[in-house]
């Protein structure tokens, strides 16, 4: 499922890219969006190492971050990989599909971000 999957955002006529989808743009109130690929690489804008983890995780610590793609779209997600513990603002990340957590007894899947440097 994941190999050919790409992160997709929703570009409003006014230029703002939303991720995930919204019904109306907060700026221009437009409701027509074009699906656009977000890209294969993004940069970390901010992050935290969270040791008070909510239910549904097998770990005691997760790293979360907000990342920004070259087209300006942003996303929030888990920062993963060997380099996640050394992540800094500006680190490069690559979207990676996988299990996020369990909610209500069901595994949830989605995009995580592998830290590259």
């Amino acid at each position, binding site marked *: 499922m994941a190999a050919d999957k790409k992160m997709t955002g929703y570009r409003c006529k006014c230029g703002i890219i939303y*991720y995930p989808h919204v019904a109306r743009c907060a700026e221009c109130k437009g409701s027509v969006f074009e699906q656009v690929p977000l890209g294969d690489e993004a940069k970390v804008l*901010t992050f*935290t190492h969270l040791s008070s983890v909510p*239910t549904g995780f097998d770990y005691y610590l997760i790293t*979360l971050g907000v990342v920004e793609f070259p087209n300006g779209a942003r996303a929030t997600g888990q920062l993963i990989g060997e380099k996640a513990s050394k992540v800094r603002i500006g680190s490069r990340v690559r979207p990676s599909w996988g299990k*996020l957590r369990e909610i209500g007894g069901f595994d949830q899947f*989605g995009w995580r971000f592998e830290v590259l440097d």
Partner: protein
Amino acid sequence: MRPVAIVGVGMCKFGKYKGSLDDMMVEVATKALADAKMSEKDADTVYVANMGAGAINRQTAIASALIDRLGMVGNTSAVSVENGPASGANAVKLAAMEVASGFANSALVVGAEKMRAAEGSIVTDFVAMMTRPDAEYIHGVTLPSHAAMFARLHMAKYNVEPRHLAMVAIKNQNNGLLNPYAHIQQKITMEGILTLPEAKMNNPYVAEPLRLYDMCPVSDGAAAAVIVPLEDAKKYNDTPVKIAGMGQGTDLQTVHQRKDPLDLKAVRIASDNAFKMAKLERKDMDLLELHDAFTILEIAESEAAGFFKPGTGHKALEEGITEIGGKLPINASGGLKARGHPVGATGVAQLAELTFQLRGEAGKRQIAKAEKGFAINFGGFGNNVVATILTRP
């Protein structure tokens, strides 16, 4: 719309409450009704603010439960209000509007939350449910993680240091020692939570760069207020407090979608609207109750609400301006940091505290000559905010 006033308030000791959620609501409602000389009267309308009873106490529609226990049924209307951590001030706003419009002549507002009924990870999870389900919650985003990611950016941009965050915690816990309602009654020092080697053990990171003492505790708690038309207020209480202004502002729920992640837009808009309604200015305020669920928020809200320029809130803190006895005391009650943050109760508790202060009944934490006070009740991660101005009429 006619002006309205708070003529009765009541609170319970925040912390671990022995009785049920209903017991807690009844305790504070009874105190507020007695304070308004309404012990044997019904209110026309009752609002109850609560966020998590359905998730953690297995109880919903709790306004109906409260009027049943109070024997206040018949013509009294009862409404439960759930608007995240801004539920409390929102319930006050709705009650004030109902009385101001003339639809009701008296309103009882209760904010209540019994959070310690569940274990920590479940409480963290239920609070996190107010984040966007498919963009934040599913990834494990919690409110502490939002605050941490905000703090990292704010600290880098404005040269705010960990010691500034610790100063907020120390100030508010010291203030809490003067507040018998406060959950946390513990004196802390800069050495103990930051500078000594053992501080790393005492005060570990929870969501780096935020540490344990940067977070509010998990508390049970409730607060209540009685609201009537200002013109009738003296019949209920010799020292009524006017609701001079209320404002609400909103922002995108998906935090990463905000143009400037450091702009607490909803705080700014809610504050501007409250001041516009009150026809007052920032310099007129004698004290502030801000929503310091995390230490960084006290600093950031003091700027976004317009009391200090962006990037200078931590300097005002450092200069002692925000201490009891300073030029503009913030969170003389101990704030959420020390009083506790039973989410649905907080907004009502903030206004009960301002009422105590404006009536000169705040005991050891009393701000001298307090006549005008301001509160921010911050919902979501700043996406739904209510600002309130109370004054001595």
